């Protein structure tokens, strides 16, 4: 990034501490609160000036509380920045589909095992082939499951509970999903016929873009107590699934964005960017969107659950193990594109707010009632995937997150290079070869898909996670390194 950009960015922002930079409330007209960007100086120097503009734009929405925030992996989005967190008062605030994004409840889950790196490494290529065959991925991928409209309604309403009741997974999986894999308040009649058409054939598909299934091993444990409780230890094999609500979620956002775009005019909300379309939180339009968003969120949890189930089957068959023998337990599943009604302390009083996390992970501390019982003494696992070929991290949520970020942390490494430039400058086959020389196997439907998600395209996941750790909003528990990736 140019020197010119770096000076431009630091001219606008006021330093609060080494990891917190403020966008002054008078930076743009109409801002209701200041902005807060949580980055280190080196990450600040590669932040696009337009991202600051987007943080300021969000600050102008009605009923926003405390600050318009951007996590350490923040980068340019459309409307909201990616890595954006904003909380709006339940009564005087708004709900905005742009603060959630098109891939509603895009998220990530991590599964542990009793296998060691040495058990898997010699057979890794064959294992990845088997996973690639079992889990549909890529543009237009279709599932082995076809659900009818009644089943789709059940998925929208019951989320992971539907999957477990239908044989995809075990009871213990449910409590290890954020919100138990089922947000309350779904209303399937808020979902259009179009969204249903797209949703029916796609349960259990990875999709494309930055979505993946990765086989990994725990390379380093930072926090022995927390790692033990999460079932993690050095040298052990884990796998991770990153995907969302597929076409159903995209269509639900598209449909309601159009409605809310008209509603913004009706309620006379001044929008600095039309993609910030929103309506008063209690209005019919906003509630209708929210109930449909919940359907998509629940769909996404089912999607990741079914993919995990098939991956477990592949592992069991491959290692000729009985069901349960390999200890393939779900560590946790987090959403990173979602809006939720949560209770937070604001100015000393407990208030209900709609927290929008657009590319940000919930990071609740020890003792919070929404942290699963078996983890409650430790805190919620915060799973931060790295880019392809780089480290991923498991952290635990901490009380500082409740004070600073409405209980939120980053969601990944954050892009620095556009997909277009990536494909222009990098060749998929060469990246594949380079990763192979590091012992990492990548399987993808198209080589160009490897280029646009190459490690060079992202900020360093370690730098981003260090900011989260040093701020204290979530602290490091373990680092995992990739062995093989199935790309969407």
């Amino acid at each position: 990034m140019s020197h010119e950009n770096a000076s431009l960015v630091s001219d606008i922002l006021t330093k609060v501490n080494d990891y917190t930079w403020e966008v002054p409330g008078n930076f743009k007209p109409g801002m209701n609160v200041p902005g807060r960007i949580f980055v280190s100086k080196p990450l600040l120097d590669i932040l696009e000036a337009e991202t600051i503009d987007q943080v300021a734009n969000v600050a102008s929405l009605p009923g926003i509380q405390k600050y318009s925030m951007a996590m350490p992996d923040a980068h340019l989005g459309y409307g909201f920045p990616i890595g954006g967190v904003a909380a709006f008062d339940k009564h005087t605030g708004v709900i905005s589909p742009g603060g959630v994004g098109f891939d509603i409840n895009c998220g990530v889950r991590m599964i542990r095992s009793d296998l060691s790196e040495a058990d898997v490494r010699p057979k890794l290529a064959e294992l990845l082939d088997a996973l690639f065959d079992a889990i549909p991925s890529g543009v237009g991928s279709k599932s082995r499951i076809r659900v009818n409209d009644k089943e789709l309604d059940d998925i929208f309403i019951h989320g992971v509970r539907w999957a477990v009741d239908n044989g995809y997974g075990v009871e213990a999986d449910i409590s290890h999903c954020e919100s138990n894999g089922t947000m309350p308040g779904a209303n399937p009649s808020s979902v259009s016929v179009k969204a249903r058409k797209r949703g029916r054939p796609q349960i259990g598909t990875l999709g494309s873009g930055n979505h993946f299934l990765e086989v990994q091993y725990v390379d380093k444990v930072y926090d022995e107590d927390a790692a033990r409780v999460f079932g993690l230890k050095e040298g052990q094999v884990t796998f991770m699934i990153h995907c969302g609500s597929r076409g159903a979620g995209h269509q639900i956002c598209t449909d309601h964005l159009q409605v809310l775009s008209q509603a913004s005019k009706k309620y006379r909300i001044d929008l600095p960017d039309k993609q910030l379309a929103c309506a008063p939180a209690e209005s019919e339009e906003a509630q209708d969107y929210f109930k449909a968003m919940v359907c998509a969120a629940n769909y996404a949890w089912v999607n990741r659950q079914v993919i995990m189930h098939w991956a477990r089957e592949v592992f069991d068959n491959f290692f000729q193990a009985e069901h349960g023998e390999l200890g393939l337990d779900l560590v946790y599943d987090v959403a990173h594109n979602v809006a939720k009604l949560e209770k937070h302390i604001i100015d000393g009083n407990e208030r209900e707010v709609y927290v929008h996390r657009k590319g940000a992970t919930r990071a609740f501390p020890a003792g919070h009632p929404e942290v699963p019982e078996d983890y409650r003494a430790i805190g919620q696992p915060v799973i931060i995937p790295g880019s392809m070929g780089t480290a991923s991290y498991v952290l635990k949520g901490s009380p500082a997150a409740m004070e600073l970020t409405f209980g939120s942390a980053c969601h990944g490494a954050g892009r620095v290079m556009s997909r277009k430039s990536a494909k222009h400058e990098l060749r998929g086959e060469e990246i594949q070869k380079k990763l192979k020389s590091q012992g990492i196997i990548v399987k993808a439907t198209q080589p160009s898909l490897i280029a646009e998600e190459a490690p060079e395209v992202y900020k360093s996941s370690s730098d981003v996670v260090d900011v989260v750790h040093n701020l204290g909003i979530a602290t490091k528990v373990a680092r995992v390194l990739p062995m093989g990736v199935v790309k969407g």
Partner: protein
Amino acid sequence: MSSVPIKDFEYLDHTADAKFRAYGKSLAEAFENAALAMLNVMVDTGSVNTISSIEVELSSPDTESLLFDWLSEILFVFEVEEMVFGRVRVNELIVGDDECSLQATLFGEAIDLSVHVFDTEVKAATYNDMKIENVDGGWMLQATVDT
């Protein structure tokens, strides 16, 4: 006032997503080129046989909504009909005071992964930094799609 360039569309740099400008002598032609700009993010439209077609009819409150609906509709048809498109024709585009409408034909064929090399999947159209401008001798449309 700038004039309409000779090219049909061009891509602008955007970190996460695909952003483009599409041009046309008429608004209908600019809408056709916007569709091609988005489709080419996903697949080389030159590799598509335009042997079958699908009709699209849309109406929206204003031109920006119409552009959003138009791009969204193409993504919907692509996914549910499992068809890829190489050519589009906007047969009629009417701009009224409280309603805009278009009628168009998408030409293409069934997706065949052995023939069609898919690139970045476009998730959705967005309103981000959308522009519809009357430039000297025609129209310029700017849009960002979520990838």
